[in-house]
């Protein structure tokens, strides 16, 4: 390591030798940086899971455009849309189809004592709403009142139950005073707002939620004709339906707006983002403490070297060398530990807490920047290395 660094730096790697010399301090510093890394990784993991699960329900949609109430910040928030907008949309050239899309919530109190909080999608079963071929195949069954499709990736849904349903044994359960039959499963997965999803026909939905009316779906799903740009149709729809009570966006735009709202407006997103900042601050403080103590401990040596003509930049390079070494050495255990914690969290919550290459590289660079900033602050003490004081 010393030889490698000597080659890389073109000088004696004093920073490395100093760190290595005080092994207990080095171990504490690495543990501190690793701890900060774990904090950052966990918060980014939660934030990533929030982003991922926010996008999950949009991905399987066949529709190109979503017409929503103007106060709909997310897929499930906001007022309903007048069904009249659906007919207005159908009149716009280039629009191939438009369907009502109903959303509701329902807590399934299971016999085993667990509760599964479902987001319920009410769809027109005569049309293909989702790309999932399993859902598409089950559309005919959905036309029967009180039938449902169950999200097998939902939290607290046993694989045996899903296998039994897909094996041809419908599972009956009570939902909002009705008895539903789950006749097939599909997969979306758990999120922060719901444990999973349930798909029913619009008719079943309206039976489950008697206060809702067919004339006011939550969104209107619009598909455009083949070869037509959804962006163009969005513009045409906005011109055709200028009323301010709705917003017309492509599904991708709606998903992006939902993600932005979840991560920057909702407390949970803000908390995760704030957690990342706290992780960085903890790292900054730990590394600053280590480097600043190290500088203070070697002030006389640095002053001696200053006396023989070493420039301030030389001492800065020593501190930065230490900072980068701590960043890299702290990152390795940090990322390994975080990988283990991600696995534990995914199994415990069903949330997609996953390590991505981009995240790992970003945290490595972020940690290096954090250590360099700490180093830069710590070097202020170097100004106190006055060689005249040595005499």
């Amino acid at each position, binding site marked *: 390591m010393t030889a490698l660094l000597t080659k890389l730096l*073109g000088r004696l790697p*004093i920073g490395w030798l100093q760190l290595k*010399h005080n092994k207990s301090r080095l171990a504490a510093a690495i543990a501190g940086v690793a701890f900060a890394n774990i904090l950052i990784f966990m918060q980014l993991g939660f934030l990533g899971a929030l982003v991922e699960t926010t996008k999950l329900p949009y991905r399987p949609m066949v529709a190109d455009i979503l017409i929503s109430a103007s106060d709909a910040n997310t897929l499930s928030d906001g007022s309903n849309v007048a069904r009249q907008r659906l007919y207005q949309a159908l009149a716009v050239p280039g629009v191939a189809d438009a369907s009502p899309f109903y959303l509701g919530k329902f807590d399934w109190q299971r016999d085993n004592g667990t509760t599964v909080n479902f987001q319920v999608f009410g769809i027109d079963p005569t049309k293909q709403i989702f790309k999932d071929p399993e859902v598409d195949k089950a559309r005919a069954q959905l036309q029967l009142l009180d039938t449902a499709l169950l999200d097998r990736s939902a939290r607290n849904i046993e694989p045996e139950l899903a296998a039994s349903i897909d094996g041809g044994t419908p599972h009956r359960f009570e939902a909002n005073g009705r008895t539903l039959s789950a006749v097939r499963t599909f997969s979306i997965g758990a999120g922060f707002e719901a444990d999973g999803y349930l798909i029913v026909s619009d008719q079943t939905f309206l039976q489950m939620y008697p206060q809702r009316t067919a004339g006011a779906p939550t969104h209107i799903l619009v598909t455009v004709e083949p070869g037509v740009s959804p962006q163009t149709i969005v513009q045409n729809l906005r011109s055709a339906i200028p009323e301010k009570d709705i917003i017309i966006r492509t599904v991708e735009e709606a998903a992006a707006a939902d993600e932005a709202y979840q991560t920057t407006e909702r407390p949970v997103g803000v908390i995760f983002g704030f957690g990342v900042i706290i992780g960085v601050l903890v790292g900054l403080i730990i590394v600053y403490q280590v480097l600043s103590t190290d500088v203070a401990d070697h002030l006389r040596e640095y002053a001696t070297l200053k*006396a*023989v*003509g070493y420039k301030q930049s030389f001492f800065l390079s020593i501190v930065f060398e230490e900072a980068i070494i701590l960043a890299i050495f702290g990152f390795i255990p940090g990322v390994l530990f975080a990988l283990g914690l991600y696995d534990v969290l995914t199994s415990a919550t069903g949330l997609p807490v996953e390590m991505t290459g981009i995240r790992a590289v970003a945290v490595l660079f972020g940690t290096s920047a954090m250590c360099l900033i700490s180093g830069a602050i710590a070097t202020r003490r170097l100004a106190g290395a006055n060689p005249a004081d*040595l*005499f």
Partner: protein
Amino acid sequence: MKLFNKDITQTSTAALPADQQGPIRIKGLNHWFGSGEARKQALFDIDLTIERGSLVILMGASGSGKTTLLTLAGCLRDVQDGSVQLLGQELNGADENVLVACRRRLGFIFQAHNLHESLTAMQNVRMGLDVHGPQARKDWKAPASHLLNLVGLGDRLDYLPGNLSGGQKQRVAVARALVGNPDVVFADEPTAALDKESGHQVVSLLKRLGTERNTTTLMVTHDNKVLEMADRIITMEEGRIVKDELPHR
């Protein structure tokens, strides 16, 4: 200890031009510490010229101004009033780059060794060479080991300071100060941590550098045992030079 039967010229790296008239020339030097009512004058109208290759000892009681004079001549402190010319360079008003360039032609031996505890004796001595550029960084081993041999530490090259005695550490510091082949050596009580024999050998080495390489040494010491080796002994009292004499031999 075989200190003086070796060729010290082997330690030379690139020879640096030295001032012909005297590497240290001081005229009308005054210096103050503090400000306002607490301002106190430490040096009064000092005039001093030190010849090339000489070993000059500065003596005086604590607070007499000898260390202030040493730090001013060694470009470690800003000159406030008067003129200090070091190796032909006026230090009064000189910018940091000039001071750094001057310092690279100097060797400093402090009372405390100030070695890097994490570096071996060889690596500590190397630090005195690395400042001189890429070539010195490349060819550091031979001069570093030679200097350590000269100060009697040839068998301790790879020892960390923690495994050396106080005297041995001080000798590593001496080797570090001399390995860059300085034009002027500033030494503050270099023999304080050494036994009588080692102290005598270190001062003899400085004396020999003066003879063989024209290295000038300005040394603060209270060690009477080394006075006889000096070319000049300057005594200071209350910020003034009160005696400038040849040693009694």
